[in-house]
């Protein structure tokens, strides 16, 4: 593969602390596509938890740090999360509406930022020859990816491109899983009831795996499946693809 220049991989805090396997899978796929991967020095969190909770001063403090880190780098910024991407692409503009200098920096970063499936699908990700033993895979479109960024075709095309994988639909596939970050902490019962509805649909779909592009949803879904005694495995899309390349 000819070298395609460098890119910045923002692992996201959930991948970094809870599920580095997904980050490694992302990195291996991006390398295979010919990119020189950098993980920006000093990257922490995008500030979304504080932002969504309404603590915008706190969120701005974190977001400024993230902008400091990212503006010092070059190349595309790849983020393996729909919700963190949406934060960088759409919400920073809102957060810095009354702060023109930061807003300008945020626009620059937003322009470079791509969610994982979006970036990979645009750079030949469907033609890397991933193959797996026959299995049925259900895809959970995370809300910020689907409705925030409007990305729907790309992850599904990537799933379909893996030999041996049969995508299985399920009822109300595009409905939220009830995670919502702090929502699931502040309103755990409402969240759990939404999760019940989602998992009931997934469990009758006949899926062997449940795949998504957001660690938040995946941790929620995985924790729910485990509590319900299900054997359906959850994976980030990058892990499924990476497994097919091993």
């Amino acid at each position, binding site marked *: 593969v000819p070298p395609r220049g460098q890119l910045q991989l923002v692992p996201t805090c959930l991948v970094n602390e*809870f599920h580095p396997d997904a*980050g490694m899978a992302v990195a291996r796929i991006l390398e295979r596509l010919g990119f020189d991967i950098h993980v920006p020095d000093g990257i922490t*969190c995008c500030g979304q938890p504080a932002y969504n909770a309404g*603590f*915008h001063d706190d969120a701005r403090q974190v977001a400024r740090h993230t902008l400091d880190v990212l503006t010092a780098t070059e190349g595309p910024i790849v983020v393996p999360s729909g919700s963190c991407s949406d934060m960088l692409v759409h919400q920073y503009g809102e957060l810095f509406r009354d702060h023109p200098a930061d807003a300008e920096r945020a626009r620059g970063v937003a322009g470079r930022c791509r969610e994982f499936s979006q970036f990979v699908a645009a750079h030949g990700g469907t033609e890397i020859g991933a193959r797996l033993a026959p299995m049925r895979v259900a895809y959970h479109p995370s*809300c910020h990816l689907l409705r925030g960024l409007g990305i729907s075709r790309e992850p599904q095309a990537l799933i379909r491109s893996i030999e041996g994988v049969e995508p299985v639909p399920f009822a109300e596939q595009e409905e939220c899983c009830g995670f919502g970050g702090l929502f699931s902490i502040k*309103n*755990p*019962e409402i969240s759990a009831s939404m999760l019940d509805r989602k998992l009931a649909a997934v469990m009758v779909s006949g899926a062997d795996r449940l795949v998504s592009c957001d660690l938040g949803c995946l941790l929620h879904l995985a924790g729910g499946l485990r509590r319900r005694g299900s054997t359906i495995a959850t994976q980030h899309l990058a892990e499924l693809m990476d497994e097919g390349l091993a």
Partner: protein
Amino acid sequence: MTTAFQARARAAIGNHQLHVALDRTTALLGLRRSTAVGSLDDFESVRSHARHAKMELLRHLGDSLRAFEERLLENGAQVHWADTGADANRIIVEIATRAGVRRVAKGKSMASEETHLNEALEHAGITVIETDLGEYIVQLANDRPSHIIMPIVHMTKEDVGLLMHERMHVPYSDDTQVLAQYARERLREEFLRAEMGVTGANFGVVENGTICLVTNEGNGRMVTTLPRVHVVLMGIEKLVPTMADLDRFLKLLARSATGQKLTAYTTLIRGPRRAGDDCGPEDVHVVLLDNGRTTILAGETAEILGCIRCGACLNACPVYRTIGGHAYGDVYPGPVGAIVTPGLRGIAHHAELPGASTLCGACRDVCPVRLDIPRMLLALRQEAVKETAQPIALRAGLKAFAAIASRPRAYRAAMKVMRRVLRARATDGWISRAPGLAAGWTASRDLKAPAAQTFEDRWRAYRAQRDAS
């Protein structure tokens, strides 16, 4: 600490009957909506035009209201301005008293729910009958509506059969046709006896002072033609500029609300009975209600005044579908209610409503006027943080998070502690009972323990190994 909202939500979640009823109706309406939207070739462009017209109108609402009032007066209607709900009620009671009215027949009106008009009229010794089938049943049950267009979405047909059997002394049935017939017979008498009709308005057309009402039962037409006095109670945001705009809004409203191309009855009212008319009221009064709307207009959520009350966001909302309308604690439920209620009543007593959302955006997708509901929910969360008490653990936690997350070394150290603490509680990599804020989480799902080694550490090791080879 369990708040009033959480207590109501919990009760709703435990109510199996409610879920059956909610599931049936919201899924059906959602499906009908998407089919109906597909039946309009240029849905997206109609949506864009409608949004543009409404947002422009709101920018010059004062001018539009003055023009609308002039047209109404030219048409022979009488115009009243109500700053508050109490003002609106007082005005309407006065109109009724002066006209010697003893019985009022009402069409469906969310504005009258908002002002609690029925209680005010009854307090003045006037009998009020709701004539919309759903609202009639709500009144019969001494209940409150739980959906903007389907007031009894929380009831099954079996519930209604039992209620009618008990309150109307008719044979029990769970056949909706039979139940509707029971109500229809009773309501027919009421239409003929009522001296005053009260309705809301779906739209008011600025260019010619037309009041537009849509119904599927025809009760709107009866209420506005049979009684000798007609009172329209409408929010000041209900205006559309022209008849051409009205056409667009009607297309959007019917499709978004019930999945129809057009509601069964579209009533256009332009003043009282004229010489030579066979029917119609002698007097038409239009009460224009502010009740907090100008406050909303001046703030971050002004956009919500573009809402045409179709209810599509309720049917699409996974939270509404889980907790139903009553849990929202006021007249307007669902995503729109989570914005309108704090706007009209103040954030102080409704600070949790904007938080009762995962920001999934399903509401924004189906909104015929493309209102950015998630953006407004976020704005209100910010307002709630500024103006109301927040759990100290959350406030302190986020403050600490911000301080730490903007200092990479401190962040790494703090995360390391977090990982160690959580990993110590884990068995086989999973935590099944977490303490403190996360206790609710682990009540119904396991929590994956953090990794022993972060991605960054693994990445560095991987890089070093590869560079060495």
